[in-house]
């Protein structure tokens, strides 16, 4: 379309299509369409899980990819989160002489909130992006079409193993993050700030219930499922060559992270009731 910016700004058609409201509305519509498609993909994969053959080897490979390969980044994240959290809380409680609560607060925050959410965000950055990139590349090079022509359902072959891997591995990673995060809090409080180790351990042990930990793991399972679905969805809907793969990859991280944080609110609400 020729013409400078001034020409465009005096064109009512252009104004109509490019004002902020129209753009927002269009974005909103695009997001809700995507949401609908994601729900459809969830339905399809739920059906496909129970269809034979069971691709055990594929599931194991994805578990390795999503779970095993994420161990270092998840543990480091959680160790330092526990340490920083202890540092801040100890300082805060010190103001009114309640340092002995540090162990409890660190433990609760880690198991209920920080470990599941941060683990999921790290896995979203590592694994959901990798899923979108791998499946997206397959899409733009017609490998997805090739799967269809070889009478193989891509949802069963590609999506199900990744979603199952997320569902199983993110809670396991979260359990490890719980442990390491609490250790980090202990190290900072006891070794660095000089808290009484007996009091600290006791405060952690006696005020943290099984349900705090289990609730966190349930959240992690839901997040793992969601980030798997989003990574696959972005991969399967990739259009437009290598550039499209790049867009899907970043899109997968953004949407998966948003899904995790939004789902976190609702799950926490449900689990607290």
């Amino acid at each position, binding site marked *: 379309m020729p013409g400078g910016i001034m020409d465009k700004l005096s064109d009512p058609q252009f104004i109509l299509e490019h004002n902020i409201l129209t753009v927002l509305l269009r974005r909103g519509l695009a997001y809700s369409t995507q949401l609908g498609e994601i729900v459809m993909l969830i339905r399809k994969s739920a059906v496909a899980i129970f269809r034979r053959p069971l691709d055990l080897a594929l599931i194991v490979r994805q578990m390795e990819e999503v779970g095993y390969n994420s161990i270092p980044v998840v543990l480091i994240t959680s160790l330092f989160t526990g340490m920083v959290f202890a540092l801040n809380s100890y300082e805060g409680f010190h103001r009114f002489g309640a340092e002995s609560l540090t162990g409890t607060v660190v433990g609760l925050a880690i198991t209920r909130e920080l470990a599941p959410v941060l683990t999921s965000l790290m896995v979203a950055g590592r694994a959901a992006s990798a899923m979108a990139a791998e499946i997206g590349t397959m899409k733009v090079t017609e490998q997805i*079409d090739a799967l269809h022509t070889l009478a193989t359902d891509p949802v069963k072959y590609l999506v199900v193993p990744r979603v199952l891997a997320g569902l199983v591995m993110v809670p396991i990673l979260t359990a490890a993050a719980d442990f390491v995060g609490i250790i980090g809090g202990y190290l900072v409080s006891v070794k660095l700030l000089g808290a009484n180790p007996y009091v600290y351990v006791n405060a952690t042990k006696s005020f943290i219930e099984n349900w705090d930990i289990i609730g966190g793991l349930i959240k992690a399972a839901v997040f793992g499922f969601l980030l798997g679905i989003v990574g696959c969805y972005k991969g399967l809907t990739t259009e437009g060559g290598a550039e499209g793969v790049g867009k899907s990859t970043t899109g997968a991280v953004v949407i998966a992270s948003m899904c995790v944080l939004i789902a976190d609110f609702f799950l926490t609400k449900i689990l607290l009731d």
Partner: protein
Amino acid sequence: MSSNGALIRIEGLHKSFGPKKVLSGLELDIERGETMVVIGGSGTGKSVLLKHIIGLLKPDGGEVYVDGEAVSALDEKGLNRLRRRFGMLFQGAALFDSMNVEENVGFALTRHSMMSTAEIAERVAGCLEMVGMPGIQKLHPSELSGGMRKRVGLARAIALQPEIILYDEPTTGLDPIMADVINNLIVEMQERLKVTSIAITHDMVSAYKIADRIAMLYQGKIIETGTPDEIRNTSNRVVEQFIKGDSSGYQQGDSR
């Protein structure tokens, strides 16, 4: 509903992507055992046509019948049954990057046949031999040249011993020698396996070499069908221009 003789019958096929009309009432019959080559400029909808035949795309209107069976009416299960009668060679070969040549060629056999591992290995070796690439089972797609990839793609397409083979631009992007190797392979498949083939291309050398009949796709329709000789001596201006590669006054295929 009918299939009087023709193995594949395409009736009034319509397909648009958004505002863009790609196919508009395309009609074509493919007889059992023949090699039909559809020619046309790039972006005219040749790949879209192939994808309708094997049920990868659903038509907006019209229908593809294979053996009298309406493809767009099939459910997932029916489609998978139908697709086992087809082999397809994709333009970029579409080999699975995550697998070696043997796993690629044996993919459908591993998933859909009762064959033992040893039987599959033997069949894979046979298919690779047939395309002139024996002994490369353990190589990965990234280690293969364009021509080698196409040949492995062909080996994968014939592994389930299909009745119908679809070729999407089998010679595009290859040097003339390699293109000739592929052309010879397609002719050989025809003679040895007695398959029905549909190839789409804009390479006239290839079309003349492999075709029993040639059809020209232009502005969403088949505008002429004939034997290679008939096409060579066509009186249709558009076809004549295309086969001679004359660009003067030529309208790009997509109708606006």
